[in-house]
């Protein structure tokens, strides 16, 4: 059995990373074996529905070592309320919505909890929201699920999105308000179904959110899984994708923007357990402000049986100011040589001074040039979503995030000091 494992990490920009990797091509622009602790095969990671099996972490464990465990601690309890959030669904006419007890046989079918918050949430929830796209249905509208935080009572919620065989649908999952929430999102995509799921974390600034997304793809199923994390104090999202039939295809796209003091963590796991499936992971983040911290971990496991696998994962981080820290750890395990392709890339860089010079040399004030560069950094990713109404909304969100950050970004600028209000509205594409 051939087994290779690579790891790359960790760019502590505060410690003086000055290399510019922001234009590194997706051709393995990364380092190996820098920092981090060696970890065992992802296949050996403990998973269970039993809260006694996955115990409360100390923070030193591989999967918790980057996380602010003290802030997440309330969510390690299996005694969680349901009152902290209100869930509202506006569904497409073809789609059905039910509230069901945890005992419903459809629940717990996609994957298995893989960390303490996930197993605690499973044991704590009393009921779940089930969104069903019937087999062969083609949803004529976006189904919107709005999760609104209404109190800081530590709470758990459970959502199942079930895309029936050969169905086609788009689901938007929004998180707003203030909550301390451990959430499970099961995404079951049956044979030949196509699903786009967009999960937006736009919490107010005190929210603490742990979320286990567990995707199960049937034969020839196709999933576009989009994560957008902007708000909250701590957001820790762990999307898992598991192929159970041949010919499945998952595209996992992520976009995050961390401001001062925010912790945004995305840990992905793509489990290639059957032959001839394809996965693409593209996550991009921007950071600005003191103690802004992002973590991206991308685990891909190509099991021995998974011949013909085609996988690629990419993470890029743009550090906009001093004092921010981006951790980036792609892991690729390959247990068979009979694959189509496998690769990863990770790059973390500051603003590219040459880009800024070029734009400024065309008369564009420095602050506007910076906005253009950040906007462009995310725009390509947003345009790949393929749902126009959602793209427009996300571009507006990024614009708002940029406006909010501008004072800080401008504060780090060594020169200029030009009034940005005159051309500030010209940045939208």
């Amino acid at each position: 059995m051939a087994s290779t494992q690579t790891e790359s990490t960790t760019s502590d920009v505060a410690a003086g990373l000055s290399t510019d990797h922001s234009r590194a091509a997706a051709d393995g622009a990364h380092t190996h074996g820098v920092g981090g602790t060696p970890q065992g095969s992802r296949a050996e990671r403990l998973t269970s529905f039993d809260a006694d099996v996955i115990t409360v972490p100390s923070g030193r464990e591989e999967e918790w070592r980057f996380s602010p465990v003290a802030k997440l601690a309330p969510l390690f309890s299996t005694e969680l309320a349901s009152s902290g959030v209100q869930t509202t669904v506006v569904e497409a006419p073809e789609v059905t919505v039910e509230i069901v007890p945890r005992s419903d046989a459809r629940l717990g079918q996609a994957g298995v909890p893989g960390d303490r918050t996930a197993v605690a949430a499973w044991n704590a929830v009393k009921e779940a929201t089930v969104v069903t796209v019937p087999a062969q249905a083609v949803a004529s509208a976006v189904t919107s699920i709005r999760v609104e935080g209404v109190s800081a009572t530590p709470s758990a919620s459970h959502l199942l999105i079930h895309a029936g065989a050969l169905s086609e649908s788009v689901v938007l999952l929004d998180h707003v308000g203030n909550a301390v929430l451990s959430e499970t999102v099961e995404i079951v995509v049956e044979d030949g179904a196509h699903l786009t799921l967009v999960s937006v974390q736009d919490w107010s600034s005190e929210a603490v959110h742990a979320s286990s997304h567990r995707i199960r793809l049937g034969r020839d199923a196709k999933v576009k899984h989009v994560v957008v994390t902007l708000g909250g104090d701590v957001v820790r999202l762990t999307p898992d994708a598991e192929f159970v039939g041949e010919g499945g295809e998952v595209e996992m796209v992520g976009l995050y923007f961390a401001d001062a003091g925010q912790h945004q963590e995305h840990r992905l796991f793509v489990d290639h357990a059957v032959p001839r499936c394809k996965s693409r992971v593209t996550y991009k983040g921007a950071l600005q402000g003191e103690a802004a911290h992002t973590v991206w971990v991308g685990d891909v496991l190509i099991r021995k049986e998974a011949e013909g696998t085609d996988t690629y994962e990419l993470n890029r981080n743009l550090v906009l100011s001093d004092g921010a820290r981006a951790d980036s750890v792609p892991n690729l395990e390959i247990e068979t040589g009979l694959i189509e392709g496998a690769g990863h890339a990770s790059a973390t860089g500051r603003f590219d001074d040459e880009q800024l010079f070029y734009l400024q040399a065309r008369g564009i004030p420095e602050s506007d040039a910076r906005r253009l560069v950040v906007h462009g950094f995310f725009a390509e990713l947003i345009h790949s979503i393929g749902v126009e109404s959602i793209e427009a909304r996300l571009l507006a969100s990024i614009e708002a995030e940029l406006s909010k950050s501008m004072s800080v970004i401008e504060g780090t600028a060594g020169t200029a000091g030009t009034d940005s209000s005159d051309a500030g509205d010209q940045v939208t594409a």
Partner: protein
Amino acid sequence: MSTLDIRDLHVSVETKEGAKQILRGVDLTIDSGQTHAIMGPNGSGKSTLAYSLAGHPKYTVTSGTVTLDGEDVLAMTVDERARAGLFLAMQYPVEVPGVSVTNFLRTAKTAIDGQAPALRTWVKDVKGAMEALRMDSSFADRSVNEGFSGGEKKRHEILQLELLKPKFAILDETDSGLDVDALRIVSEGVNRVKANTDAGFLLITHYTRILRYIKPDFVHVFVDGRIAEEGGPELADRLETEGYDRFLTTATA
């Protein structure tokens, strides 16, 4: 009429071994409507002059002055210089992923003019200028310089020159790496700007080839960080046959 006046300009660049002097006293005056060619061997400081005028942070002006109609250019930020009327067509234009050419051009035009261009005429102007430069309309939607060939990047620079209408344009080795067809297209673009506006030009080149298409009024030979000889177009012809050897010998002597 405008005047760009460069007096006794000394510029150094930071290297690992410390500051290295590149320009050693450049004197040059360009008036509106004039075309000055700066020719010289590799490493003579031609591009340093171009980037110093545009305000690239890598270069430090250690003494001398640059004024545009009496205004102190060296006190201006990069974008202020552009808004004052300076334009640098770069030898290596930079890729800006995710920013479309359309958006970039409109943002730049708005910044230079201080107000957004009237939409209808602007779209027509962009389209016309792109057609004249034989640029496919699909360029408008592509990211700035991303995936452009060398010739496409240079045409994109001249497109900006035509649309932004500067008072003074510095063309930094715009001819390098171009085949004859592309060179002709780019030169036609420059000549259109010469014919239609009052812009002054500083044409930096290693080769005399481009001077067959863009006629200079003055030729300056740049050696070792300063102007070693000046003359009319006939000086270019002489360089064509003699090369730079004569200057290099005196420079090292």
